[in-house]
C-alpha cells in the first residue's frame, strides 16, 4: 500500500465501519424509535406517545429521584475524600507511599459485579462484618438492605470505595503540576498551610476537580450494575435507578420505544448537568 489519496481512508475504514454500524446507526435508530409505538404489531410513528409518557410516569420520576439522591450524596463526598487522599499521598511526610497508593487505587481494577457481591456480604443486615463491628462500639445494626436510607447509603459507600482512587489519580496528577515555587514563595510570606491549601492548591486544582465532577455525575447517572446486584433496586423500588428502569422497560416489558425515550432523557440530563457544572465552576483558575 503506497500512499495515494485513499490511504488515510484505508487506515480509517475498520473504525468507520464499526463506528457507523454500532454507534451512529444505533444513536439515530434510538432517536427514531423514541417517537414510535413499538408495541403495536407493526411499529408506527406516534410522536407524543413515549415523550408524553415521560412526564406522567411516576415510576420514572421515582427512579430519577433515587438516582439524583445518590449523585447528591455520593459525588461531593467522594470528591472531597479524593482531594484529601491525593493531598496526603502527595505529602513529603508520608511513609510507605507505594502501599497506600495500592490500597486507594486498587479498586479501579475490581469489577462492579465482584465488589457488589463482597459488599453485599460485608453489609449483610444479619451477619455482616460491618454491623458486627458497629455492635462492638454499641451502635445498633443498620438495615443496609431492608430500609431505603440504608440501601441508598450502601450504594453510595460502595461507589465511593470503587471510584475514590480513580478520581484521586486525576487530582494527584493535577497536584503534581502545581509549581513548587508557589508554595516556597508563600512560605516566605508566612502563609499558614491551610491558607496555602485554600489560596493556592484548591484554585489550581479546579480544572481537575471539575473533570472528576463531570465524569462522576455522568457515570452515576447511568448507574446500573451496583444497585442491581447490591439491593436489586429495593426495598420497595427505593434504589431503582433510571438506567435500571430503562432496562426494565426495554428488556422486560420489551417497550423499545419508551426505553429509547428514557435513554435520550439520560443523555439530555447528563449534557445539561455537565454544561451547568462547567458554567458554575469552570471559570479561570485565578478568578
Amino acid at each position, binding site marked *: 500500500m503506497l500512499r495515494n489519496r485513499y490511504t488515510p481512508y484505508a487506515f480509517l475504514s475498520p473504525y468507520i465501519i464499526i463506528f457507523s*454500524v454500532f*454507534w451512529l446507526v444505533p444513536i439515530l435508530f434510538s432517536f427514531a424509535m423514541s417517537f414510535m409505538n413499538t408495541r403495536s404489531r407493526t411499529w408506527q410513528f406516534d410522536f407524543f406517545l413515549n415523550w408524553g409518557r415521560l412526564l406522567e410516569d411516576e415510576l420514572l420520576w421515582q427512579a430519577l429521584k433515587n438516582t439524583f439522591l445518590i449523585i447528591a450524596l455520593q459525588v461531593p463526598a467522594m470528591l472531597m475524600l479524593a482531594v484529601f487522599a491525593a493531598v496526603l499521598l502527595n505529602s513529603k511526610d508520608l511513609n510507605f507511599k507505594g502501599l497506600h497508593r495500592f490500597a486507594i487505587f486498587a479498586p479501579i481494577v475490581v*469489577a462492579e459485579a465482584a465488589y*457488589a457481591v463482597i459488599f453485599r456480604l460485608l453489609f449483610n443486615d444479619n451477619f455482616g462484618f460491618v454491623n458486627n463491628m458497629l455492635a462492638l462500639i454499641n451502635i445498633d445494626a443498620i438495615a443496609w438492605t431492608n430500609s431505603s436510607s440504608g440501601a441508598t447509603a450502601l450504594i453510595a459507600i460502595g461507589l465511593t470505595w470503587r471510584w475514590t482512587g480513580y478520581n484521586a489519580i486525576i487530582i494527584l496528577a493535577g497536584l503534581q503540576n502545581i509549581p513548587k515555587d508557589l508554595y516556597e514563595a508563600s512560605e516566605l510570606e508566612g502563609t499558614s498551610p491551610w491558607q496555602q491549601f485554600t489560596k493556592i492548591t484548591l484554585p489550581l486544582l479546579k480544572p481537575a476537580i471539575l473533570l472528576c465532577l463531570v465524569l462522576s455525575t455522568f457515570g452515576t447517572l447511568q448507574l446500573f450494575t451496583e444497585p442491581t446486584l447490591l439491593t436489586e433496586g429495593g426495598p420497595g423500588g427505593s434504589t431503582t435507578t433510571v438506567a435500571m428502569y430503562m432496562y426494565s422497560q426495554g428488556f422486560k416489558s420489551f417497550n423499545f420505544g419508551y426505553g429509547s425515550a428514557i435513554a435520550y432523557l439520560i443523555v439530555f440530563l447528563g449534557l445539561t448537568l455537565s454544561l451547568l457544572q462547567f458554567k458554575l465552576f469552570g471559570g479561570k483558575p485565578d478568578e
Partner: protein
Amino acid sequence: MNNSLTSRAKKLFINVLMLVISCMWLIPIWMMMIYATHPDNVIFSGELVFNPGTDFLKNFAILQGKQDFSMAIFNSVIIAGVSTLLGLLVASMAGYALARFAFRGRNTLFALIIFILAVPSAAIVIPEYIIVVKHMGLSNNYAGVILPYLANAVGVFFMRQSFLNLPAETLEAAYLDGASEWKIFYSIALPIVRPALASLGIILFVAHWNDYLWPMLVMTSEQYQTAPIALGRLIGLANIEWGAMMVGASLMTVPFLLLFLILQKQIIAGITSGATK
C-alpha cells in the same frame, strides 16, 4: 525545638490518618480472599478473620457445581483478549490516519469522535441489542459481544495523541526510501508508541473484563456467560453460597490486583492522559 516537635506531630498525624483510610480500603479485598478459604459458618460469624482456612477447593467445587465458572472465566478471557487486541489495532490505525494525514473530512470525523465520547453507552444499549441480536442473530456468539467494543472513541483519541508526538521526519524519510505506508505504520510508528499501546491495552482489557450489562444481554445461555454474569446469577439464587461466591470474586479480581501491582505506572498513565488531554 518547638518547630520540630510540631512537624513531627504533623508527620505522625498524616501517617496515622492515611493508615486508617488504607486499611478501610483494603478490608473488602482482604475479606474477599480470606472468606474464599473458609466454610460458610465462619463467614456467618461476621468477624474480621486473619488466618486463611483450608476450604478454598471445597468452595470452588460448590461454585463450579452451581455455575460453570471455569467456562465463564474462559469466555471472559476470550472476549476481553480478542476485544483488546482488535480494539488496539482499529484504534491505532484510525489514530494514525488522523494524526499523520491531511485529508478531506478529517476535522468532521474528529469532531464526531469527540461527540461520541459524550454519549453514554447506556443510551444506545437498546438499539444495539436490536441490531446485534435481532438483525445480525449474534446472540450467544463471541462476535456479538466483541464487535461493538471495537469502535472505541477514547482509544482513537488516545492513539491520535500518541502518534502526534512522533517525529514526522523519521516517518517521511522511510517513505522517501520507498517503504509503504502500511510498513511505516506497522514497523516504525507502532513500535515507538508501545508504552501508549500498553496503557490503552490494560485499560481496555479491564473495562471489557468487568463489563456487565452488554454481555448479559448478548450471552443468555450459561455456556457463553462471562464471569461477572455468572457471579450476578449466583447472587440471584434463593440459597446463596457465600464462600463459593467469594471464590468467584477472587478468581476474577486477584489476577488484576497482581497486574496492577506490576503495571501501576502504565495504568495510571492511561487514566491521566485519557482524562486530561
